[in-house]
């Protein structure tokens, strides 16, 4: 438990998380996995596919409580989450989707958020009328609208074409830096992790644990290509290791 006066931080310690398969076998997904993030930090989880990243995100979001260990969330935590699919309510407009999640948001805030994400012209549209990119932007807007203390992003840009993904990454980086919350990002994309994160947690294959933690100390904007390549090389080396 945190004492009064502690810094706002996220601490996850998962001793063990397992699933029971249809045939009755127990499969370990996460084992002795722990990491922590301080206020204002962004952490990226990177690892082989199927290693349990999404399972970990569900635990952080409070959707899965069936595990051994503990998750310490920021006090008075409001969680904003962007799922792998946008998960919008198809029968509510873009604006209503955002306002339902954040009932106390002011008109000024809504306008600013929609402007920042290029959604101003789509407020009254239903999700079925949006392109994939716009739907993902709406999901981002919804997550930011709740003014989260913990923002969870589960591969938010997967299946988007590269230029659009880069554009959204830039928008996201701007919003993350203007807020001061804790962000956890799951991604397959090394460049995305390096561009957005302060700490990169490299996960092993199943049962997943943190193999290495890489701090990205250089301010994102000032980072040189060489530094970027060094970090990428380090992660690649870990990935190839048995």
């Amino acid at each position: 438990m945190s004492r009064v006066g502690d810094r706002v931080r996220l601490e996850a310690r998962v001793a063990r998380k397992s699933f029971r398969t249809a045939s009755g076998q127990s499969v370990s997904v996460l084992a002795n996995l722990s990491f922590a993030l301080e206020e204002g930090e962004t952490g990226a989880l990177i690892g082989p596919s199927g290693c349990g990243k999404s399972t970990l995100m569900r635990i952080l979001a409070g959707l899965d409580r069936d595990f051994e260990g503990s998750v310490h969330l920021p006090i008075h935590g409001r969680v904003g989450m962007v799922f792998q699919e946008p998960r919008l309510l198809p029968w509510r407009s873009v604006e209503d989707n955002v306002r339902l999640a954040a009932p106390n948001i002011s008109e000024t805030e809504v306008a600013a958020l929609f402007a920042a994400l290029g959604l101003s012209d789509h407020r009254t549209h239903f999700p079925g009328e949006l392109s994939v990119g716009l739907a993902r932007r709406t999901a981002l807007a919804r997550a930011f609208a709740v003014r989260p203390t913990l923002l969870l992003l589960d591969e938010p840009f997967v299946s988007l074409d590269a230029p659009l993904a880069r554009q959204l990454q830039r928008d996201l980086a701007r919003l993350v830096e203007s807020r001061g919350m804790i962000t956890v990002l799951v991604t397959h994309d090394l460049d995305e992790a390096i561009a957005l994160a302060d700490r990169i947690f490299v996960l092993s294959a199943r049962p997943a644990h943190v193999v290495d933690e890489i701090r990205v100390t250089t301010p994102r904007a000032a980072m040189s290509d060489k530094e970027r390549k060094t970090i990428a090389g380090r992660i690649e080396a870990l990935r190839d290791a048995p």
Partner: protein
Amino acid sequence: MTRLISLVALFALWQIAAHFANPRLLPAPMAVLAAMRSEAASGALFQALGVTLARVAAAFLLAMAVGSAIGYAMGRNALIDRAADTWVIVLLNLPALVIIVLAYIWVGLNEAAAIGAVALNKLPVTVVTIREGVRALDTRLDEMAHVFSFSPLKRLAHVVAPQLAPYFAAATRAGLSLVWKIVLVVELMGRPNGVGFEINTAFQLFDVPLLLAYALPFTAIMLVIETFAVQPFERHVSRWRPRAA
């Protein structure tokens, strides 16, 4: 427009058939209209329609409310589903006539027995339809609502109800026609008024124009409810679906 033409065709066919048939067995539309006019003039037609409509509304609302609640609980909870499933199947396969006769014997020849018996006939159909809808609910949207801390009321209004709307419309449509048919049987067997009672009288007198004079207006009312209430409701709740160009 198409509906109007098909309605006119039906009347034309009736007129032609009546021309060849015994007028005592199949009266012409005009003869039925005359019978309707005389019943309307005495006020008996409207009184019977009003009483029957009230019974239909009461039994329908009762069956929809209770049936939706049970169906929702069964769709959400596997234990309740297993426990209540047998009851639902028994009720679903119990002939309407058996339920009506038993209700009159056990409860008495009164309004409560009549409306209860009709509602009980409609109940399992509502339960099964709503349960199907609840089983098809998108768990991913449930999780979204959980993460964003939607209140139970907000979840019901914005996440659950829109997904159940088509099932609700289906239960309404199938329910109205079923309820009105059974209400007539209930009235015929044990009520001193209503369309079913008047039809029984017409049957005793072998008066086919009178029989049709009571049956047709009610069918027309149902057609109006379907066109001006059920269908607009369906259009309203599905307005978010992108229409094919």
